[in-house]
Structure formats: structure tokens, C-alpha cells
């Protein structure tokens, strides 16, 4: 696939959708659905001023830390839980129990434990990003090819080498799936974490616009979140292509080059 083709494919649909939105919303008088032109107009003044450094960047930093922590924790826990059925049987109901608790009721509990500072917000992000990574890792670890597992056993490949070269690598396609899920979940939880005990942040701003009836600004925030998602997914793909090059190679080996 040439670069040009790639760009056209990546931008084609968005361009069409944006155009459709632009024309459909032009002249809209609906308070909650302002014209796209208005949203675009307020976008730079809303986000490119001091908000970028005061709100957006700190939020992104928290997102980065929370995401990374969830990734590490999820993979580590996932390996332990996935490779031992007794551990799995013991922990699964409890984890499912915790998983089902909605953030709006979970956050107050976290506040009790971690206060109202950045730690709490990072924890909120972790509490959401963890699950996709954990679940996918567990399933990935469980479906390790049995011939490969036997190979490791006979060659007495144990300990760190085994964890890395058998368990993590073979689960990595699923781990990557989980990590990709967690990426957007993380952005969402970044917003949710800033609904509580916050007075700055990207998510806080969006919520504040919503509660202050500044609807075009709110829309611009939503768009910013979406663009953030796209940007992070591009970065993610770059990393993924390095990490999973063997996988994509082996999956497309038979396909047209």
C-alpha cells in the first residue's frame, strides 16, 4: 500500500463525515446542536490558550501514568491468573465483582483511600484501563499453544525466559488488543476522574462547559477528545508494528504483498 493510498484511506471517510456534519448543521438554531462552523470557531480560543498547558497537558500526563500502570499491572496479574487455574477460580468472581462497580460510586471510595489529588485521578484511570488488559492477558495466556508449552518444558526453559518468550510473547496479540481497548477507556476515565475533586484538566473543562451551558465549547472538547484518540492510536500502531511484527508477518504471509 503506497503512502498516498494510506493517507486517502485514513482521511477519506472523516472528510466525508465532517462535510456532512458541516452542511447538515449549518444554520442550526438548536441550542444543543450548534453549527459545526461555530464549534470550529471557538476551538482555537478554547484550547490553544493557557488551557493547553494548565489543563490539557496535566491531564495527558495523568493519562499516561495511569495507562502505563494499568498495562503493567494488567499484564502481570493476567499472567499470574491466566497460568494457574486455582488462582483463576479464586480471584475471578471477586474481580468480576469489582469490575462491575461504576466509577461514579467507585471514585468516592478511592477518595477515602487516596485523597483527592493526582493519585486518586490516576487510580481512577487505572481502575478502568486495567480490565481490558487483564481479561485479554488472561485469555491470551490460557491459549498458549500446547506444543510450544511442551517444548519449553522439555528444554527446561523456565523462569524469566519462559515468562517472556513463551507466555508474554504468545499472549501478546491479545495483550495488544486489550491495550488498544484500554487506550480509549483511559481517555474516558480521564474525563470521569476529573468530574470529582478537580478544578482543572481537560475532562474538567469539558464537564464545566457542559454544566455551564457553553455548548459549542463542550463540542469542541468532545472533538478534542476524539482527535486525542486518533493521535494516540496512531502512536499505538507504531509501537504495535514493532512489537508484533512477527505476528502481522505470519498472519499476512499468505496474502498478497
Amino acid at each position, binding site marked *: 500500500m503506497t503512502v498516498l493510498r494510506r493517507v486517502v484511506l485514513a482521511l477519506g471517510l472523516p472528510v466525508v463525515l465532517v462535510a456532512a456534519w458541516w452542511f447538515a448543521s449549518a444554520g442550526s438554531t438548536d*441550542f444543543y446542536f450548534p453549527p459545526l462552523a461555530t464549534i470550529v470557531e471557538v476551538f482555537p480560543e478554547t484550547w490553544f490558550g493557557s488551557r493547553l498547558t494548565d489543563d490539557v497537558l496535566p491531564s495527558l500526563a495523568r493519562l499516561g501514568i495511569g495507562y502505563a500502570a494499568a498495562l503493567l499491572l494488567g499484564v502481570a496479574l493476567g499472567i499470574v491468573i491466566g497460568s494457574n487455574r486455582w488462582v483463576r477460580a479464586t480471584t475471578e468472581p471477586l474481580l468480576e465483582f469489582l469490575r462491575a462497580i461504576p466509577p461514579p460510586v467507585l471514585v468516592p471510595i478511592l*477518595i477515602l483511600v487516596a*485523597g483527592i489529588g493526582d493519585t486518586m485521578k490516576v487510580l481512577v484511570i487505572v481502575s478502568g484501563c486495567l480490565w481490558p488488559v487483564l481479561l485479554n492477558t488472561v485469555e491470551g495466556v490460557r491459549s498458549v499453544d500446547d506444543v510450544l508449552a511442551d517444548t519449553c518444558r522439555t528444554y527446561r526453559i523456565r523462569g524469566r525466559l519462559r515468562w517472556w518468550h513463551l507466555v508474554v510473547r504468545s499472549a501478546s496479540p491479545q495483550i495488544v488488543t486489550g491495550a488498544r481497548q484500554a487506550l480509549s477507556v483511559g481517555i474516558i476515565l480521564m474525563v470521569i476522574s476529573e468530574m*470529582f*475533586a*478537580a478544578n482543572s484538566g481537560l475532562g474538567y473543562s469539558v464537564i464545566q462547559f*457542559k*454544566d*455551564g451551558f457553553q455548548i459549542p465549547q463542550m463540542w469542541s472538547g468532545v472533538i478534542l477528545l476524539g482527535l486525542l484518540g486518533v493521535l494516540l492510536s496512531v502512536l499505538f500502531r507504531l509501537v504495535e508494528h514493532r512489537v508484533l511484527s512477527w505476528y502481522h508477518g505470519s498472519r499476512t504471509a499468505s496474502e498478497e504483498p
Partner: protein
Amino acid sequence: ACGSDGDDGGGGSPDQPDKVTVGVIPILDVAPIYLGVEKGFFAERDIEVSLETAEGGAAIVPAVVSGQYQFGFSNVVSMLLAHSQGLPIKIVSNGVNSTGVDGEDFAALMVKADSPIETAADLEGKTVAANTLQNIVDTSVRASVREAGGDPSKVKFTALPFPDQPAALANGQVDAVFVVEPFQQAVLAQGGRKIASSYVDAAPDLTVAVYFASQQLLAEDPDLAKRFTEAMAESLSYADSHPDEARQIIGTYTEIAPEVIEQLTLPKWPAEVNRESVQTLADLALEDGLLPEEADVEALLP
């Protein structure tokens, strides 16, 4: 139970009461409307009210604007903000007022028992929890700070829902909280101390919250709005003069423990909006930068 069939604009025929849905928050402020429905003040005026609860304005305001609810309950500053952004709404009835008595209001600015903070002026450089920021609570607290001779711009606010504030105060995560009932009782129970009654400081007999409707409804069915206003007025007066019944009805739509209900400081429920207090709030909001320009308070008030 959604009243999407109520906005037909034609008004009810005599034997067909108007079905009306009102969006409220399940807190003690709205006791009068529950009481009014029970007492039949609305039925008398051919209005069949169904009350829908939501956690806050996030859902009530858009629901009223889009005609899903005919009326809604909201605090005054939110109304001012919405109006200033051009949202087509109008206040139709008073909602709830402060008691006007310093130290004996249904809401208070509170600190821990052993806190060095004595007055609102001591809050400079300290963190205060407010349920929402850039809204009525922080505006009122700033008024308290100002009145106590402090610089309100030096107070840090952090958003925290009322239910989570007592714990945050107890654990020292914030220096002060501004809570309403029943959380005022909770903070008192853990030994907290009132340092100001900010709703009282903001304006005398401050109108805290109101009932509102969309301008579309007012234009299409002014009669219904008039009857609703009347019924509300009667409900408010009744509740104000029958606090025991008000307390009793609070027990039906909340989960507040009966012994706590007995101790609650009830707000005032005058029948009329305190117009000056709304204007004062609008001025404060302008001063604090919540509003970009002077609000047209008259256009918002009934």
C-alpha cells in the same frame, strides 16, 4: 411516565387534566412539590404531576428545553448561566430560599472541630470543596469570604459531590466544605463546626433554587404555566407553614434516616422569588467571572 404528550399546547379540556412531568432532584429542597401533589394543589388546577428525579441539572435542563419535561428544578446560578448562553428558559416559580438566619441555615460552610480556621477570611490559601464549581456554591462561599474581609480569589475550590464531602473533610483532604442538609448533620455529627452561612451571606433571604420552563411552553400554553405557578405558590406556602408535614414527606422520597430528618434545618419556602437576591447573585457571578456580561435578570424572572 414521560410527559411527551403534555406539550400539545392546546391545554387540557375541563375533564382531561394536563399531564405534566417535573424534573426534580431527590433532596429536601423539593419537599413542597411532593407535598403539593399529595395535598391535591395541582389536581385542583387540572394538573396531573408526575415527578421524575435526576441527580442534577445535567439531565433536567435539556429535558425541559426539549419538551420532555414541562418544568424543572434548578439553582438560580445555573439558570443565569443557561440564560446568558441563550438557552430559551424562564423561571416560573420560586423553589427554595435560605432561612436568612446566620448560623441556622440549611446549608453551611464547615470545618473540622480542631481546625484553626475561625472565619471565612481564614480560607485564603485553603481548599474548599463545592459540589460544582463556577456555580451557586462557590459564588456564595466567595461572598462569605468577602464579607469576612478576605480575598476570595485566594481560596481554592475543588469539585466534590455533597455526599463525599463529610468524609473528605474528616480525612483532612479538604480544609472546608460547603454542605447542605442532610450532610450538614453528618458533618455536625462528626464534630464539624460551622464558620459561615454562605447562602445568608450572599444575599438576604436568598432564593437558592427555582422551578423553570422552556419559553416555548410559556408561549404555547401560558395558561398551564399560570396554573402551575399558582399551585406551586400554594404548595410552597403550605410547606413553609407546615414543617412537620414537610419533614414527613421528605421521608417518602429520600432515604434519609428518620432520626436525621427530625434534626434537619429546613429551608424557607416563600411563594415568591426574591428578585433582589437573584440580581445580587447575578452581580456576584459577574464579579467572579462566571458570567461574561451583565445578565438580563428581568427576562429570566417571571
